[in-house]
């Protein structure tokens, strides 16, 4: 029987295009220290460190966890490195959570980062690989045709993506850690920005960010101690799951991948959720390109197939007035330290149910979804966190 897992502390950096004031070690340490402070723990209280990041080629360092061991207080402790493509920030949190759920450790520090200014992700994603046809297009070029397929299938009007781009940037204004703060953003600005990969405009794409995210995950006992010492309540993990499917095969539904649907079904079943739109108070979902909001609304069961764009269009997903706000933090569209982007979704979901999300808090949030995806939309990691201790 699995032990209960709680998020007892979270920390993140102020995400920026260039953090040239710190090394990678300094960057991850900053987020980790904030998570420790939030949890009322010291470095000595941590039993193990689980770190994740997107491909090593982004910074040009092979297995960077080796040189980061000291900066993350891991010397003499177990240190573990996860890499599951873009979903890695979520998967890393889940691997860490299983160390507590499986009774291995009491308190695990989990960290994810990317220092995109140290490299060129577009290049790293485009190098030709032995035995494989090169894509030479980066992530946007990969996903644009899938978005086109969604538009054709659903009949969504052309401006739905632009609505998401504006909504998430306006919500980012309420999050001091967000990379992009664009108070004057309008639909017209988005439409007039450069068309990068048809149908995606520049402002419908995520930025390149330096940043890190960290969480301290603890057992029930650790949660009790943390709450008593900090006065801040934990977020409880109500369900967590990962799913993978192959990149390519005949008949694969790339627009609405089965792995995403299965992962959501698994995590909802664990959390006792039958109607996610009604039972969740908010969601932090990996939307690196604007159109992935309506697409994931359908994939995650918030709307019927072909209907996701109607939720976006009606304003249902906005923090201001929506019944199911998505990405109140500004999401990946406003901050994208790639390896950390998934963990930020998990972390922001925890902040919401702890009531600590500040200006982007959804009032009275009790249950939230954190979501990450990666590869060719084939790797999924999700958790549902709640304010109440699960049964």
């Amino acid at each position: 029987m699995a032990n209960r897992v709680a998020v007892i502390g979270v920390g993140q950096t102020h995400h920026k295009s260039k953090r040239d004031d710190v090394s990678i070690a300094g960057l991850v340490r900053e987020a980790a220290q904030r998570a420790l402070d939030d949890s009322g723990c010291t470095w000595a209280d941590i039993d193990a460190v689980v770190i994740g990041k997107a491909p090593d080629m982004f910074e040009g360092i092979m297995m960077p966890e080796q040189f980061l061991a000291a900066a993350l207080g891991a010397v003499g402790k177990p240190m573990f490195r996860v890499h599951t493509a873009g979903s890695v920030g979520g998967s890393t949190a889940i691997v860490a959570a299983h160390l507590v759920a499986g009774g291995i450790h009491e308190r695990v520090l989990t960290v994810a980062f990317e220092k995109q200014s140290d490299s060129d992700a577009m290049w790293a994603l485009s190098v030709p690989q032995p035995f494989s046809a090169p894509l030479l297009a980066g992530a946007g070029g990969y996903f644009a045709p899938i978005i086109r397929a969604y538009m054709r299938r659903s009949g969504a009007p052309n401006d739905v993506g632009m609505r998401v781009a504006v909504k998430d940037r306006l919500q980012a204004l309420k999050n001091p850690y967000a990379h992009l703060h664009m108070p004057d953003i309008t639909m017209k600005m988005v439409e007039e920005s450069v068309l990068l990969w048809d149908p995606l405009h520049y402002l419908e794409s995520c930025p390149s960010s330096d940043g890190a995210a960290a969480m301290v995950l603890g057992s029930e006992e650790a949660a009790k101690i943390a709450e008593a010492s900090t006065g801040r309540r934990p977020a409880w993990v109500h369900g967590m799951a990962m799913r993978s499917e192959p990149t390519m095969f005949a008949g694969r539904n790339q627009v609405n991948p089965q792995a995403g649907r299965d992962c959501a079904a698994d995590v909802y079943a664990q959390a006792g959720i039958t109607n996610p739109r009604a039972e969740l108070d908010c969601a932090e979902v990996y939307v690196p390109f604007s159109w992935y909001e309506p697409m994931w609304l359908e994939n995650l069961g918030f709307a019927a197939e072909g209907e996701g764009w109607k939720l976006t269009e009606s304003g249902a997903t906005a923090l201001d007035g929506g019944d199911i706000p998505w990405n109140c933090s500004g999401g990946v569209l406003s901050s994208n330290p790639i390896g950390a982007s998934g963990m930020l979704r998990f972390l922001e979901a925890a902040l919401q149910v702890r009531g600590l999300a500040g200006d982007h808090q959804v009032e009275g949030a009790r249950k939230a979804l954190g979501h990450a995806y990666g590869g060719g939309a084939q790797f999924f990691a999700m958790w549902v966190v709640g304010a109440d201790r699960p049964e």
Partner: protein
Amino acid sequence: MSKIPQTRQGHRPVAIVGFSQSKSLRADRASNEVEMLLPIVHDVFEKAHLTKNEIGFICSGSTDYLIGGPFSFVTALDAIGVWPPKTESHVEMDAAWALYEAFVRLQEGDLDTALVYGFGKSSLGNLSEILNLQLDPYTMAPLHPDQVSLAALQARAVIDQGFGTEEEFARIAARSRKSALENPFAQVRRDDSVEVLLQEPYLVSPLRRHCLPPISDGASAIILAAGDKALELAEHPAWITGIDHRIETHAFGARNLAVSTSTAKAASIAGVSEGHVDVAELHTPFAPQEIIVKNALGLNDSVSINASGGPLAANPLMAGGLIRFGEAAQAILDGRATRAVAHATSGPLLQQNLVAVLEGA
């Protein structure tokens, strides 16, 4: 007597019930990673009497830097065919750590089986240049110390502190190569005398060529099963009765390179010294490292070390540590041993180490 031995750390009992590996080759030009994995994945399922649809969890270990591309594990998944979608994860570490993740995942009782695999095609690039990128990018990598020179520093520390001699390094190499004659999967298989080996010129003093591992392409796979499921799938499951891993600082100047405190700590938590050890498989790619790890594990001379030939006879990166687990487990699965130690390492100069005790019932 119970059919399932007691675990030391209160873990749910999990056992290795199947192991498969590819033949280690200097350069496997005929297959890509998927083609390397496909036969061994089929083989390990067959050995464990399972199909992929019965597997609860999948975890792999590999590094992007060997292929020089961002997602080497992604296409490798095609060797499994994860359809319908599966619960799956990946570590950018030796696949022995993927085994650790799978072991942890099986603790909660909702899943009973896991597939673990690792693969590495070291022949695709210049290994010395690639492994340099594993060093601290600000202070160490720009100096470009190659991995053999670093290993020579460690070997020198072993000699200077009186833990070993060049002749002992040669004896370890000779024994490994000779043992490998019995292992059809090994790459360096020959009967060399210590005297002849010592006549080789230094590559980087005090290391001669025989102190180095071969450059290898290869893959390995293991099936884990928990509790009664393991008894169903194997006659003599290799139970993981203790397991732990630890990391040290990356700063070589802050470590005594001739000792392995992380191995010693993991060994004490895994309970290595709490019984007689029949066989040990040590992931020590450079001959002097065997002395360091053997000392840290507290193994005496009665223990059979690397009867497979070990990493000095075959060293596919990212799969090599998992092969140690497989070889140690196979001795128990075959009824040749009742208590075995498996060790895996990651990072430069034994920075990070994983130790497990495997037991038959």
